[in-house]
């Protein structure tokens, strides 16, 4: 069990790195959605079912939806690549 958690933490750091350094915004949004799911899985491993449930619904579901909507509304923005 403990090794699973450790692997999850490593995965978390890798995803966060990717979300920060990747070039496209939509990739970063997807990455942060997956990130929230991994965080929620760690919460399950830490025996926090309430927090895990809320994190899965709010962090992975709702917040990702917010990001997608906002990106959809701002997509016709500048032709500039993210720097």
């Amino acid at each position, binding site marked *: 069990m403990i090794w699973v958690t450790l692997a999850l933490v490593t995965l978390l750091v890798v995803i966060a790195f990717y979300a920060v350094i990747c070039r496209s915004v939509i990739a970063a949004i997807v990455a942060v959605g997956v990130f929230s799911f991994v965080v929620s899985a760690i919460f399950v491993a830490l025996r926090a079912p*309430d927090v895990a449930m*809320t994190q899965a*619904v709010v962090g992975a579901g709702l917040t990702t939806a*917010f990001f997608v*909507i906002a990106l959809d509304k701002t997509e016709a923005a500048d032709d500039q690549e993210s720097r």
Partner: protein
Amino acid sequence: MRRTLALLISGSIVALGVTTLMLTGTLSDAIRPVDYTLRTVRDTGAINAVTAILFDYRALDTLGEATVIFAASSVLAFLAPRSSASMLSVRLSMLILYGIAFLLPFIMVFGFGTIVFGHVSPGGGFTGGVMLSSSVVIFAVVYSVGGQQSYVLPILVKKYVENAAMFVFVSLGFIGLFSGGAYLANALTGIPLGEPGSLLSGGLIPLLNIATGFKVGMGLALIIISLFAE
């Protein structure tokens, strides 16, 4: 230039943090927090310690948190234009539409269940409220109704429910003030705590749970509908 600076700053943050960690050693020699868990059943009648803490011991935090949602939703509702606005530019296929429409009632029932059984099982007002709001949102996405023309619940009704739920929450606190001597008191007011583990237990906790659930649900639904409509 900017990247070097960023690397320097974040590197020093990591270095400082790890140094603190090394100096502290493991957390085992730190003082353990107060253990609420075994007291909760005796003190509040709720068997879910997290719900008991959120709605009894630290209910003022919960009130503040619900206020944050309220403030966010009223600001975003103000930002959204009055006319019905464009929805997402993506079109969903028929199969997905019917699939989601089939799932919708289950999500709503699950959300209500999470709110009502919040003090006896994992969940509570917040989680259940978010589920309720997501069902409203799914409805809006599937049937492409946004802004003021949301069919599932008009914006005004949502605002009424949200404000009424806030009123109920603050008033429930005043019950404690007038009959128990402390704001947001629960057991002190003399309300029977009930049989721990049963649905009717925990004194005021289920009521606060329901008020919070409605408030969070409507607030988040307003937030996301406003984001859509903006």
